[in-house]
């Protein structure tokens, strides 16, 4: 159909099968895209390069190639205990959060998807109430509860509220997915004499890898980046995850921006690497979760 409006420009665009674009449109497109990409990338690149500079270089030459490459800015951080400790803390908190979220949400969602019981609609809506307001609204009573439970300044004081606040969305995603699995599986399992537990463990979960990945990614990214909960629940610096650690570091080195930039770069590096390595899954996970 498109042949009617515009003849193919070259083999490359014709091969893509979409609408053909003339040279003028293409130039315009690339110009726009490159400008926006530059606005996105320049702050990030200057941050990474800034970590190699002297402070004087940063003051006069923030955009150029470093006049002198100071490897020790990065080196000192990489050989310091605090960097690895913070990364470890973040990882531990995130792994615990993901594991418990997947476990509890899939179990609860399974009952909503497959077991008929009195009040199941009400209970499902009860969980969905959690989708309507952010954790910050009840942060003070939450702090008092964690304190009274003796969980202040422990990883659990961060993990448990994070899991609780992720449950609404996760249960919804799991339940919809379980429901859309073919009904015949359920009947067949019953005929074979499998109970709910075996059905859950051997059929529902193995078939749910995509949604496990989605929920896992959403809760991992949320936990890895989270700031307000650890800020309120943790006191000792040895337990700080990296978003808190980076703020402490900024506080200590106030205007030594070259060190702070190196620290920022190293803390976001894992995210950037994982993002580019698993971009398809991460984009799908973070947007699909939102769209559903």
């Amino acid at each position, binding site marked *: 159909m498109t042949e009617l409006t515009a003849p193919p420009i070259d083999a490359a665009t014709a091969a893509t099968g979409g609408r053909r*674009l003339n040279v003028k449109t293409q130039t315009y497109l690339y110009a726009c895209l490159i400008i926006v990409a530059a606005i996105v990338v320049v702050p990030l690149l200057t941050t990474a390069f800034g970590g190699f500079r002297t402070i004087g270089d940063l003051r006069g030459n923030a955009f150029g190639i470093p006049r002198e490459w100071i490897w020790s800015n990065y080196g000192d951080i990489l050989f310091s205990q605090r960097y690895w400790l913070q990364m470890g803390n973040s990882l531990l908190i995130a792994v615990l959060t993901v594991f418990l979220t997947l476990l509890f949400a899939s179990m609860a969602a399974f009952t909503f998807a497959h077991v008929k019981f009195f009040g199941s609609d009400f209970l499902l809506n009860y969980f969905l109430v959690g989708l309507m307001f952010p954790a910050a609204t009840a942060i003070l009573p939450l702090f*008092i509860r964690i304190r009274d439970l003796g969980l202040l300044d422990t990883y659990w004081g961060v993990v448990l509220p994070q899991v609780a606040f992720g*449950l609404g969305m996760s249960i919804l995603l799991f339940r919809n997915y379980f429901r859309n699995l073919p009904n015949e599986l359920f009947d067949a399992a019953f005929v074979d004499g499998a109970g709910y537990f075996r059905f*859950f463990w051997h059929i529902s979960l193995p078939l749910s890898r995509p949604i496990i990945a989605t929920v896992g990614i959403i809760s991992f990214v949320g936990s890895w980046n989270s700031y307000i909960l650890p800020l309120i629940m943790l006191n000792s610096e040895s337990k700080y995850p990296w978003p808190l650690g980076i703020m402490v570091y900024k506080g200590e080195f106030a205007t030594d921006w070259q060190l702070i930039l190196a620290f920022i770069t190293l803390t976001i590096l894992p995210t*950037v690497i994982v993002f580019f390595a698993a971009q398809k899954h991460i984009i799908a996970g973070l947007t699909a979760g939102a769209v559903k």
Partner: protein
Amino acid sequence: MSQITTASGVSARPTSFLGLTTRRRAQMRGKWPVLVLFLPPALLLFTVFVILPMGEAAWYSFFNWNGYGLPEQWIGWKNYELVFKQSAFRNALVNNGLIILISICIQVPLAMWLATMVTKSIKGATFFRLIFFLPYVLADVAAGLIWRFVYDGEFGLVANIARTFGQTPPFWLADKQVAFYAVLAVIVWKYFGFHMMLFIAGLQSLDKSVLEAADIDGATGWQKFYRVTLPLLGSTVRLSIFFAVVGSLQLFDMIMPLTGGGPSNSTQTLVTFLFSFGVMRMQVGFGSAVGVILFIICVTLAFSYKRVFMKND
């Protein structure tokens, strides 16, 4: 599979059929162990850490209480009066409104425009998508700190640019007239990629034949967009605005490294206000009142938005 066929094969015989039904009923009876084991963990966590704190916030908001001992000093609606008297709170409300406005007027059109470009068949489209989405996966704290550097009045990128043009470097984040606009720019930088992805998903689900029909009818690019694509993307626009509203009401992590709510409270949002005036000063009653107000705003917006704009989606 083989079991299924035998089961249906033997079901013609009454005894086996009865056997099947009793087995089925036995399964149904087996539902109580599942309910008892599978529901309580989620239910308990959710109740203890989400629902009860929300209820307690409503209760505490009527007390003057520093969080130690029991709340005893009942002061009625006084906390709410105090909250509304604070000019910082009014700033926060206005700022949250501004964030929503900016995202409707700038972020959503920008995201839609970019989405239409990166869904065209050009080389490197996937690469641009990745780059645009990258800020969204970075932690808000890291993004905030990076832009704290960009805006820094001495070493930052803005200062460097100003100096090359022989100007005195401005420090926007320290100027209460412009600080919040600087923050708004960071918000757009951080989140437009996410909204772009929503629009890409929306564009890909469009019925291509409608656009081809428009092509045949000789519609220009702009006409096609304005008369065909845009109306069909209505649900995505509403979804995108919905996320902008939700995000605005939660915004905290990025403000703290950028400005911490200053200068003179000009960049407070509702959550940073709650933090600096409730949590930092351990004013549990006052902070809870702010939390309740935030809760009411969230629930009202969620319900009315769903009812008015998203009823067809």
